[in-house]
């Protein structure tokens, strides 16, 4: 970021490659729409360019850009007239299905049709449960689980104390635990 502020435009491409994927996943899981997530990420980086002069090196660049993206997501959610009620049967826009699934992460190497089907069912159920989380808990959960940001940085992005962030995270996990109680036994069995 220092290089970019000094006029090195190639530094912006480096920042973009480093942060666009976590930001995109955060916006995608937060908003549930791939196209909107792309717009959020693009707008966030455009604002980075516009406000580069105002950036102070008191915090990390990731904290700053996640703050911008979070504010854009909040604006989008406020403007959205429809409350998201994702259907388990509806195709998930923007999600390509690529990447490891829970089954791929936890199952053994042997392909198992029954196990793959269960993993897909769990994934759908997890995404639905995450979508049902309150916004303040969902954003903290996604920053922690998807973007792998530490609690301290999340507290700076969200603007609340760190203990509040941990409490929200615990509430989100407990709610997911309740929603996924049917699969908990399965997860424990996979240990």
């Amino acid at each position, binding site marked *: 970021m220092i290089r970019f*502020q000094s006029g090195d435009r190639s530094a912006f491409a480096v920042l973009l490659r480093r942060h666009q994927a976590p930001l995109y996943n955060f916006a995608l*899981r937060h908003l549930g729409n791939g196209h909107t997530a792309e717009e959020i990420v*693009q707008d966030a980086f455009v604002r980075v360019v516009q406000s580069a*002069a105002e950036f102070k090196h008191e915090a990390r660049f990731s904290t700053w850009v996640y703050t911008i993206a979070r504010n854009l997501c909040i604006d989008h959610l406020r403007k959205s007239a429809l409350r998201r009620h994702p259907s388990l049967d509806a195709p998930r826009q923007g999600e390509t299905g*690529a990447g490891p699934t829970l089954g791929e992460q936890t199952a053994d190497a042997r392909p198992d049709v029954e196990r793959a089907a269960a993993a897909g069912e769990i994934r759908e159920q997890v995404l639905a449960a995450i979508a049902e989380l309150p916004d303040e808990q969902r954003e903290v959960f996604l920053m922690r*689980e998807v973007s792998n940001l530490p609690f301290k940085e999340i507290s700076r992005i969200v603007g609340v104390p760190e203990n509040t962030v941990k409490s929200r995270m615990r509430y989100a996990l407990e709610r997911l635990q309740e929603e996924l109680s049917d699969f908990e036994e399965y*997860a424990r069995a996979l240990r």
Partner: protein
Amino acid sequence: MDCEKFEATMMDELYGELDEVTTAAAARHVAGCARCAALFGGLRATRRVAAIPHVDPPAGLEERILRAAGQVTTTMPLGRRVARSISIAGDWAMRPQTAMAAVFMVMLGTSMLLLRGRSSRAPASAEIRVTEQGTPAPAAPAASAAPQFKPAEVYPGAPVAGARRSVEPKALAAPAAPSQPAMDTADDTRRRSAASSQMATSDEDGLAEPKAASGAFAVAPQSAGAGAWRPAAAVAEAEAVAPFDSALRLYQSARYDAAAHAFDALSPGDPNADLWTARALREGKGCRSAVARFDKVAHRAAGASPGWDALLEGALCYRSTGDFGNARVRLNALLSVDSHKDRARAELDRLSQMQPQAGVAAAPAAKASPRAASPPAAAAPAGGAPPY
């Protein structure tokens, strides 16, 4: 670690943000606490189940963002561009290298300033202290008060207010005030040399016609040194000749009788003052009253500048009264004086032109005068040779 402390650190333990010591303490507590172990195990299992698969962003997203950023950069408002420029400049300004360079430049500039100031100082021995004395001289009324005679212009060598009335080079070379006395000496020298040439301006009426444009050393009375900058020693000398100045001012203001008395009071032992007495008498009472005084000065200051001047001016006075014989005798005496011979020769030529016309009228006058055709120095002591 008890259950309360474990719950406070449970989320950190779940995401691996605890240090090793606290992690070990938490593990020992979980191993001995079934409740906390169940709570922690449930959250850990939920986290595993709720793991979200990572989705790669669309292929064209990066390119679109770069394009949008480029457009924003080119269409950035002036205010933001200025802010960004200030930010870049501020970023450079905050760097330690810049601060060190600035400090170095300040030190260099200060050193240059001090060195320059020291080298430009003149040595103490070369310092000249100047003291202002007196007040500006008032405007001279001579122009209106003396319409027919302006001594400062007619006689370029005429003393001015504040000047010395007698020239003594030894006394003038005071070490404390080397510049102004030297100037006075030069002025007096010029006065003497110019006096003879400027006397040629007189015509039949005597010495009344000014010739300011003849290249003379014309000094206006108001330009005298009363308000000028003078060294302290010169000021002291000027104060000593204040009576002479006051007499001269009387003369310049056309109060010739008073000036004659004032100069006369100064005249004992001072041929210069005596000469000015004769001049005041000439201007106040006419040449007939002044010729005797001119002769007296010529006798007393024989061989000196006042004596030559008195001889010349006396000759001109004789000529103006028609006593061409006495005039010729005095002018002939000046032919042997280098500083006055040219002027004397010129006056003799004029006298030769005038004498045929007035010869008849002048003869009785010459006979009537007991001192006719006899130079004043002819009455000098028998043992003394006449100076001219």
